[in-house]
């Protein structure tokens, strides 16, 4: 985002390893190198030393168990699958005859202290791996080193959790990270990572990409060039980290004091004085306070599809009501926009409950034709959750306004049956281009409209979501912008809020064009919100400056 006249902030260049832009205070992870005591163990104390080693191994296994438990609770995604597979690899390493067998033999046969035995075994393996010809196999030694380092930490009584004191929203600066480190960081809500080592194909980079965490690797001496708590903007697409952004660009506050996106964020305004509202996208359960601190208000899109994945039976009404209620309570009084189940996205049929198999192409509200009871169950659960806060119901893949009316009738019926008289806003996803030819009819049936830019763009421009795009350069296509403008205008005519959720919402290259359509509500992953606030604030400042 460097533009003429930009302030002379140091820009660190590395390799782009995971896309996305994030801004946050730096957390610099200092060297983990520990002095290894090179001591021998008397032969009568060797079984004791082995027991010490085993209990350290057991603690590392516990850490892996924790990670597994966490992954089991999180809605399944590529990131969780990948992390799960990596945990499996680490478990295998902890029982590997070459690795742990070597360490044990050095303790019991040679009488080395466990730490020293570990160090020597690692040195041996390093030599053997260095002889491999293919970098993708050779490079895995980093994982071995990472795990050994964790084990060493346990042996000397320094568990990894302690040095990774990362707060949510932090940009983590480190020499290298192990997979378990990274999983811990993701759990703690890190915003981005900058590493001195690593490459595009390292496991850490792969996991960052799956988890949607922007990452830049290969930034030599990064830890010497960034101070703790300095504001850093990481651009994972360009492989840059801008260090020491003046804090007032983010918050409008004095440059002293620590940068904490606060709940009382100042309203974000464009040059015409109108406010831009950022809402949170939700897949996994999110910490509502954290989402607020990132500068989002309420939930603009909760994809409930994940509640249906990787289970044999359908979730019951009680189950859904409990899950919805929790989130609605967390975010109250801000609205939580819950999208009815949409069978879309990467999944295999066997990951679906038996009752939904074979319906992979039955997108969104069309499910009412195949499984009306599934939609009705969800509607009833939503009505039950609505007593805990502000529920907004979003109807996915709408083609006819009548589909929205059908859901409204179902909501009314559920409210009557349950004796719950709450106000529930009802909205339509605008992603099927046919809607663009009848926007007034649609807006008349809705309380709000949410543009799903991923599907709308794919269907409008006839590209496939999973194949390369061949249309003109970067930035939104003019036809897509015209479509968005038309929806916004229809919203204004009918007094209906229009928001946009999709990748476009958080793409800084699209922000100016999006705001020019009149769009003022964007829904995005909260960790991307601070960067977007910067972009918007920058643009506003420049427009005002240009006017004099």
């Amino acid at each position, binding site marked *: 985002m460097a533009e003429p006249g930009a302030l002379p902030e140091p820009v660190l260049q590395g390799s782009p390893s995971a896309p996305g832009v994030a801004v946050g205070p730096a957390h610099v992870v200092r060297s983990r190198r520990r002095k290894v005591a090179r001591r021998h163990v008397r032969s009568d104390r060797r079984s004791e030393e082995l027991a010490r080693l085993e209990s350290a191994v057991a603690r590392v296994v516990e850490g892996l168990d924790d990670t597994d438990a966490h992954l089991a609770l999180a809605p399944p995604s590529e990131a969780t699958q990948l992390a799960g597979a990596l945990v499996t690899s680490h478990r295998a390493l902890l029982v*590997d005859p070459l690795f742990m067998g070597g360490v044990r033999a050095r303790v019991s046969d040679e009488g080395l202290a466990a730490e020293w035995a570990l160090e020597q075994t690692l040195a041996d393996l390093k030599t053997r791996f260095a002889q491999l010809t293919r970098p993708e196999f050779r490079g895995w030694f980093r994982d071995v080193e990472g795990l050994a380092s964790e084990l060493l930490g346990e042996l000397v009584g320094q568990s990894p959790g302690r040095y990774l004191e990362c707060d949510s929203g932090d940009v983590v600066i480190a020499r290298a990270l192990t997979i378990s480190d990274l999983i811990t960081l993701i759990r703690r809500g890190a915003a981005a990572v900058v590493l001195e080592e690593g490459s595009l194909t390292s496991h850490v980079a792969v996991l960052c990409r799956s988890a949607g965490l922007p990452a830049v690797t290969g930034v030599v001496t990064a830890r010497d060039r960034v101070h703790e708590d300095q504001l850093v903007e990481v651009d994972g697409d360009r492989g840059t980290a801008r260090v020491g952004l003046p804090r007032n660009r983010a918050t409008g506050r004095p440059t002293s004091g620590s940068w904490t996106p606060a709940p009382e964020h100042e309203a974000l305004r464009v040059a015409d004085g109108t406010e831009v509202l950022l809402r949170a996208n939700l897949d996994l359960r999110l910490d509502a306070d954290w989402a607020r601190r990132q500068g989002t208000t309420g939930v603009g899109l909760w994809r409930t599809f994940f509640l249906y994945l990787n289970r044999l039976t359908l979730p019951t009404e009680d189950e859904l009501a409990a899950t919805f209620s929790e989130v609605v309570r967390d975010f109250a009084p801000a609205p939580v926009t819950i999208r009815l189940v949409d069978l879309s996205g990467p999944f295999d049929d066997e990951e679906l409950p038996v009752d939904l198999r074979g319906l992979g192409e039955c997108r969104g509200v069309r499910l009412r034709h195949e499984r009306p009871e599934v939609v009705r169950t969800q509607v009833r659960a939503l009505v039950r959750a609505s007593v805990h806060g502000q529920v907004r119901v979003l109807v996915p893949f709408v083609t006819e306004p009548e589909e929205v009316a059908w859901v409204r009738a179902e909501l009314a019926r559920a409210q009557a049956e349950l004796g719950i008289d709450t106000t529930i806003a009802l909205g339509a996803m605008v992603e099927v281009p046919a809607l663009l030819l009848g926007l007034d009819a649609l807006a008349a049936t809705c309380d709000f409209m949410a543009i799903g830019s991923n599907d709308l763009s794919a269907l409008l421009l006839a590209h496939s979501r999973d194949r390369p795009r061949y249309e003109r350069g970067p930035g939104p296509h003019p036809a897509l912008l015209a479509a968005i403008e038309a929806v916004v205008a229809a919203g204004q005519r009918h007094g209906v809020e229009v928001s946009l959720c999709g990748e476009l919402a958080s793409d800084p290259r699209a922000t100016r064009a999006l705001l020019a359509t009149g769009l003022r509500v964007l829904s995005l992953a909260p960790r991307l919100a601070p960067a977007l606030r910067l972009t918007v604030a920058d643009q506003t400042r420049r427009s005002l400056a240009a006017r004099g």
Partner: protein
Amino acid sequence: MSGERAPDPGAPEVAAAASEVVERRVRVVNPMGMHARPAGRFVELARGFDARVRVGCRGEEVDGRSILSLLMLEAVKGTELVLRARGPEADEAASALAALVAAGFDERWSWDGRGARG
């Protein structure tokens, strides 16, 4: 993939059932080869059977329960592996492991971390 059973020439004949070696030949098909995650899956599966599994590749043979040994085989896509299992569950182990390799180790995600279906 052949299912023939061959006696292990290098082992003394103790009990016929236990010393019988089940051999399967299978080719690595996933694009990234038998790297860390596939090897981890292989070891996890191999350890679930009451059988000893050796994995041969380009004249080398290593312990199928050692992820490091498997990685050091550098089995890229197209490499032929010879799985040799011995023990009470040799047959089951060899079949399951061969199936895992042949299925590309069930790698559902692509290497660049983007979903197969975007």
